[in-house]
């Protein structure tokens, strides 16, 4: 009985402050969250530097007016043909720079043959562009 009274009186007393201790927040959950965020941003973000080449829409066979007076450049799987004549890449850039000096507005139509990958066509497009020719586009031979 006496013990019970003692307990009660203890309970009625205002609660004693816990001894002052520096409360330390655990960093583990924070690290977890930051790690997850880090992994998310590493996987989702994109560092590719895209470049672009501007191209005009192609001329089409049958629209004679557009193709008139332009120089045809055929790209075949085994070589190049400028106005029907077989030509090497180096010779092409030489001839085109000469052409660009004489006639800067000369139009070049690039006509890739079947079996030519896009990379090859882009290389040729760049060659023509570097030779100083502004007016260049692809040529499309109707429906295949």
């Amino acid at each position, binding site marked *: 009985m006496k013990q019970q009274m003692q307990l009660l009186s203890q309970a009625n007393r205002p609660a004693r402050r816990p001894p002052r201790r520096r409360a330390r927040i655990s960093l583990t959950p924070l*690290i977890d969250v930051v790690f997850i965020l880090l992994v998310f941003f590493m996987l*989702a*973000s994109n560092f590719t530097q895209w*470049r672009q080449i*501007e191209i005009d829409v*192609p001329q089409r066979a049958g629209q004679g007016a557009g193709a008139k007076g332009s120089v045809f450049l055929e790209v075949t799987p085994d070589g190049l043909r400028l106005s029907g004549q077989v030509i090497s890449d180096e010779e092409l850039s030489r001839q085109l720079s000469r052409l660009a000096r004489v006639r800067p507005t000369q139009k070049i139509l690039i006509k890739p043959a079947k079996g030519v990958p*896009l990379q090859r066509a*882009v290389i040729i497009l760049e060659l023509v562009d570097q030779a100083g020719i502004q007016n260049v586009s692809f040529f499309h031979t109707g429906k295949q």
Partner: protein
Amino acid sequence: MHIRRIGGPRKNPEPLLPLINVVFLLLIFFMLAGRLTAPDAFWVQVPESASQSHAQAEAITILVGQDGRIVLEGLEIENNGLLLAVRNEVEDHPERQVQIKADRGVEAVKVVSILDTLREAGVEKLRLLTELPNR
């Protein structure tokens, strides 16, 4: 001579603190330097070129896979449906440019026929996405 630290030898309160610092820095780097973009429908390896002009982010993108599959703005499109789809897209957003993201291995004829379809749809200028060659 013995130099005594003020306060005596102190235990490192949290041995992970340097790690957290580094992780925080990495997090900030990836948040700022990377761009969050929606992933493409399939992996495309664009052609290499020495072009220096940067591509714009907000353009109508046509994805052409190595097997000839075409995806316009995230939707796969049959070859004969492209004309209508592009026309709708260009009419809805006339201010947006059109760009083609084609695999370097796809046939050039295929890309040219897509260009032709785009011309029919009323597109005048378009851009072919490339990347700088890896050195």
